[in-house]
């Protein structure tokens, strides 16, 4: 793996961001709106419920972490879409760039763009609603890492879908976080879900993150077993997503899809 080639993919994304307000603003505007919206909802619920339960860390903390996971996913897939929109596949994949270097570049690009969103969310949550996620201490990092890995997996998976089905399929990718969120218990314990949804939930790493966080907020110890299972699942999802993308890429090279990638190129 050549770091310079991975760096080239990251640099490309940096150039695009630097020169484009329309690319920079979405990095933080939607997450900022989410924080403001859910922050006030949490405050309102606190007022209604009295002092018996603090909704701010439960709801706002959950929104913040889930939005981070979504931003990581969008970071990977948007970096990939830039090549779709610029019809850049022939130029890129006729260079010595390997698939792992390319995917590595997408992931590093996403780390940078999602960090911008995360920073804005942390500042807003702390400044406006008094929620300090960093106040949880270093114990929060494994949770964040699991969400990051799952976001990466979803991003690579979504990119594979678009590579296979053509640019119009990007509309399958944007709603993925919304589709997943009811299953992973972002706002409620998994026990709230019907049994068939709980079965799916157990297969998804974020379920363990949000269950674990609720355990800690309720005064329990950090659930190491949950974290371990969530991390193992997240790593597995990343591996599956990379395998899926590589398979789609090989199919695209074999069938000629890559050489003739257009808006209606499903074959």
């Amino acid at each position, binding site marked *: 793996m050549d770091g310079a*080639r991975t760096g*080239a993919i990251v640099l490309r994304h940096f150039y695009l961001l630097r020169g484009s307000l329309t690319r920079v603003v979405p990095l933080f505007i939607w997450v900022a709106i989410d924080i403001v919206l859910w922050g006030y909802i949490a405050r309102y619920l606190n007022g209604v419920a009295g002092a018996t339960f603090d909704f701010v860390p439960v709801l706002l903390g959950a929104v913040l972490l889930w939005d981070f996971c979504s931003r990581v996913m969008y970071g990977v897939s948007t970096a990939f879409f830039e090549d779709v929109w610029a019809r850049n596949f*022939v*130029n890129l994949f*006729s260079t010595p760039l390997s698939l792992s270097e390319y995917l590595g570049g997408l992931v590093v690009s996403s780390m940078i763009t999602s960090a911008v969103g995360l920073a804005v969310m942390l500042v807003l949550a702390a400044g406006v609603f008094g929620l300090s996620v960093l106040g949880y201490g270093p114990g929060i990092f494994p949770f964040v890492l699991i969400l990051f890995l799952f976001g990466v997996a979803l991003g690579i998976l979504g990119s594979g879908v678009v590579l296979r089905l053509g640019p119009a399929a990007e509309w399958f990718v944007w709603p993925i976080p919304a589709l997943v969120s009811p299953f992973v218990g972002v706002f409620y314990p998994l026990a709230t879900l019907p049994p068939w949804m709980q079965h799916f939930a157990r297969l998804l790493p974020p379920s363990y993150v949000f269950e674990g966080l609720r355990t800690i907020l309720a005064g329990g110890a950090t659930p190491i077993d949950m974290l371990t299972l969530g991390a193992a699942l997240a790593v597995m999802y990343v591996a599956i997503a990379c395998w899926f993308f590589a398979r789609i890429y090989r199919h695209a*090279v074999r069938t000629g899809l890559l050489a003739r990638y257009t808006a209606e190129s499903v074959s």
Partner: protein
Amino acid sequence: MRTVLSVVGLRREYGKTVAVERITFQVGEGEIVGLLGPNGAGKTTTISMILGVLAPSAGTIEIDGADLATERSRALERANFAAVHAPLPGNLTVAQNLRIFGLLYGVQALSARIDALLGQFELQALRDVRCGILSSGEQTRVGLAKALLNRPRVLLLDEPTASLDPATARDIRTKIRAYAAEGEGGVLWTSHNMYEVEGVCDRVLFLSHGRILLEGDPKTLPPRYGKATLEELFIAVAREPLTLEGS
């Protein structure tokens, strides 16, 4: 002459349609080879396979001794291309595109190389202009600058002068000839401009229905088949390939 590109038994089929039928050819160091043929003859399919973006159904491709199938990165480090159908990303500037592709090809002393190419292709004034708003002729020059970034051993040019005015086209032809003459690499050149091919190519391959029908010196080939010019020969290949095959 050392071989820089070796294509052996290359075949590509799409279902029951054969796009390229077991073609074999070589390009030598310092040589410019024209890959000619009517639309749909298999030229772009052949180039796509050499670039590694289309898998052959059969056959092997070696770029400067590196097998594309088994040593992909090593092989592609030694090749580059410019094609009208693959413009560089229009949302990046000329210099940004050259820097990114320079990094991808592992070019040493990249800034100096970019400056030299900007000078060579008279692109200094367009350095910070987004490629998407350049004229087609300027985009072609940027594409050629990118194609020469890594001093490729194999340079693939798919209709490189198609959108250029005659004066610029002549200038580009001179530059490519100079590049080949320096012995840095061999060139595989597709064009529909037979005047250009005659002036530039040392050897031509006529493709028809995915097969190499004729091969030889572009100056001596037409009389050998009873044609006055390369253009007449081209038309004959396009219209009556079977007649030529038998002669």
